[in-house]
């Protein structure tokens, strides 16, 4: 016999609806143990449950399971399901509707036979441990301090290889990396953490008609000791090499950072030490810095925060950079998010290229919102110019570049869903010291095509860049699997280079990419990709591997 869907829905709702009334109230319960046709619940007589009561269990998958209470203990109950074949897993949520009057009743007390002797309890030997009259006998569970937890080491090690071969010349290039990021928590029984991050780079380049390069770098990204900074010890101290915790904009430090969180969630901190150069060599002990910051938060959820900081640095012990930083983060539960940060340099008369005064050398502002259903809209604006300083933070530039070079960009991105199709739009404009340009992209993402978990992405795009005008198409087919994913992508672009004659200014470019990713529950991750690139009369192949173990 086939049921009409509406009839089936009515039958499903009937047992619950029938029990709702002003005299009953909902009792939420969970399955403690389940077997075919029956289960044990975590509610009992003290909760108002009685033999004969109807219950409904709601497993995560499948239809609700109905049953009847057969036996009731003080804090547990047994039920038999109407369908003897159904099984409810431990933890499954459910409910019963019990009379309000029954909930108000005190649990029945076992009668004491008249004349039975009353036994005297010997004196209690255990102290009350701070218990006072009026407190519940079962007080709140005390929390473990970090120093009471078992020491543990966690993190990851990884190996990465990326190689490129040009099929039309002898050129080849390879970058192989191996590294480890790890944290030893409660390393010395005092709740402190010991952090280590180190990576080795092997770089090889074979360049026709030029010197080949074979370089090896060992980069120490982090070796630090952290004490405090938890809910028991609001003062946090980190010493060693580390990215500054309170305000990452201040950069990596060989030194010490001290920060404190005050009641309510506000925090402040200061740091002192040397800044290693941000490159593979990481030369240090030439740039001394002292910095401080303060962070205000709306409340302890930290969904709104304003932070200001200042950094004074010295290059070879000579005055170098005076930097003022500010950032704001607003992320309400519902509504528009706003994130912004500014880097403002203060120059003196000795800064010849810039002249005395303040300059906004870097800024980013992003306003966005994710709407119900997943659609989103984001507007981002950025500004970057070269700050004048002696420290190495970028490839040396000329005085003219230092004075004039800048780039600003405003970009709008939107994503909407209609049925099984996501529509994606991007548009941006930029300006720099030499000109301006813009770009746009329109894309479609189709869900569940060909196979379950398979997505198809198609996009068309165009741009007016500093060197060329271009248009292109790209497509990607991706399938998510239980243990990873694979992706096949193709991109075509047609470039029209600026400054060339009509005969030589056109360049079509084709790019084909295949990638596969695996991961396991035990913490192994592996991915591989291969890429073929064809442009003009040239073909190149690129391949990469990534292996990681989390522990």
């Amino acid at each position, binding site marked *: 016999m086939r049921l009409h869907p509406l009839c089936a829905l009515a039958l499903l709702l009937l047992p619950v609806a029938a029990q709702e009334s002003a005299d009953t109230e909902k009792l939420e319960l969970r399955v403690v143990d389940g077997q075919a046709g029956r289960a044990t619940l975590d509610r009992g007589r003290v909760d108002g449950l009685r033999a004969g009561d109807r219950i409904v269990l709601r497993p995560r998958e499948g239809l609700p399971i109905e049953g009847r209470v057969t036996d009731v203990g003080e804090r547990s109950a047994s039920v038999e399901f109407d369908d003897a074949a159904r099984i409810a897993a431990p933890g499954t949520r459910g409910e019963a509707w019990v009379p309000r009057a029954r909930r108000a009743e005190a649990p029945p007390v076992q009668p004491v036979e008249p004349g039975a002797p009353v036994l005297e309890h010997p004196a209690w030997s255990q102290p009350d441990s701070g218990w006072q009259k009026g407190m519940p006998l079962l007080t709140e*569970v005390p929390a473990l301090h970090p120093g009471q937890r078992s020491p543990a080491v966690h993190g990851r090690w990884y190996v990465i290889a990326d190689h*490129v071969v040009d099929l039309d010349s002898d050129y080849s290039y390879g970058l192989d990396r191996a590294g480890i990021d790890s944290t030893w928590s409660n390393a010395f029984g005092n709740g402190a953490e010991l952090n280590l991050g180190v990576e080795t780079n092997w770089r090889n380049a074979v360049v026709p008609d030029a010197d080949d390069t074979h370089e090896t770098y060992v980069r120490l990204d982090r070796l630090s000791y952290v004490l405090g900074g938890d*809910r028991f010890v609001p003062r946090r101290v980190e010493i060693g090499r580390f990215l500054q915790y309170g305000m990452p904009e201040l950069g990596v430090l060989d030194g010490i950072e001290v920060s404190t969180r005050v009641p309510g969630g506000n925090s402040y901190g200061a740091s002192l030490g040397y800044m290693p150069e941000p490159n593979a060599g990481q030369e240090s002990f030439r740039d001394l810095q002292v910095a401080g910051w303060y962070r205000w938060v709306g409340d302890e959820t930290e969904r709104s925060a304003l932070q200001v900081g200042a950094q004074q640095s010295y290059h070879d012990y000579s005055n170098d950079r005076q930097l003022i930083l500010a950032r704001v983060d607003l992320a309400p539960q519902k509504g528009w998010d706003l994130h912004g940060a500014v880097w403002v340099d203060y120059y003196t008369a000795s800064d010849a290229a810039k002249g005395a005064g303040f300059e*906004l050398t870097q800024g980013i502002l992003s306003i966005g919102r994710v709407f119900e259903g997943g659609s989103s809209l984001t507007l981002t604006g950025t500004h970057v110019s070269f700050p004048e300083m002696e420290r190495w933070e970028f490839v040396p530039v000329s005085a003219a570049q230092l004075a004039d070079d800048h780039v600003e960009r405003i970009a709008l991105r939107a994503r909407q869903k209609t049925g099984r199709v996501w529509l994606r739009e991007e548009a941006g404009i930029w300006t*720099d010291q030499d000109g301006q340009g813009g770009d746009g992209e329109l894309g479609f993402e189709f869900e569940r095509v060909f196979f379950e978990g398979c997505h198809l992405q198609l996009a068309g*795009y165009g741009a007016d860049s500093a060197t060329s005008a271009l248009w292109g198409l790209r497509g990607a087919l991706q399938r998510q699997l239980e243990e990873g994913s694979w992706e096949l992508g193709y991109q075509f672009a047609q470039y029209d280079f*600026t400054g060339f004659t009509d005969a030589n200014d056109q360049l079509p470019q084709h*790019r084909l990419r295949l990638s596969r990713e695996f991961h396991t529950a035990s913490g192994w991750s592996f991915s591989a990709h291969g890429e073929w*690139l064809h442009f003009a009369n040239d073909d190149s192949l690129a391949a990469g591997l990534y292996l990681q173990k989390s522990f």
Partner: protein
Amino acid sequence: MNGTLRKLGLALLGCGLLATACAIRGSESVPRHMWWAGLGPVLPHDSFPADCSLCHVSNEWQTLKPEFAYDHEQETGYALRGAHARALCLRCHNDRGPAGSFAAQGCAGCHADLHRGGFGNECTRCHQETSWEPFGMVELHDHTRLPLTGVHAVTQCWRCHPGGEVGKFVPADPECSSCHASDLARATVPNHAGLGWVDHCGRCHLPTTWQQAEIH
């Protein structure tokens, strides 16, 4: 120029003060189990099943049963994807504070921002939750001043962005000589420097090939 900057500075200061005024509010409404209150277990257990042995080893409440499984999305409404689904609970739920407040700050709430704030908080533009490896860099450059044409599309990031190895990205000047200064110095047949051919490389070269030169 300095006058404009001063006005900009004053405007920023005003916005900052306004935001500060909005931000500094009382914390009376802070629910239990937040940073300070109660100092109970790092996870509130109020809504957990009454039978502790469902999750814990008997007589050892700090140890979870080997077969412990927890459907984070079903129980909390917050799905864990990629590497997060395989992470130890204590990596997020620990003594540093409530996981919710860190999650509200986005990725940087838990993960160190190696880019030092320069890229904002949209980490998923370049990173996925499955691994740290960035993706889609060629596509991303189609929205910059210098789309990656020819060999540039298969060149390592750090060749144009020194500092990229440690997450410090500075915009590269699209002028060829900013990256190819050493190539220019080697170009002696003909002698580029001697002839004054030190800029506007595009008059003769296409930015597409590993070969030394293709005259057009």
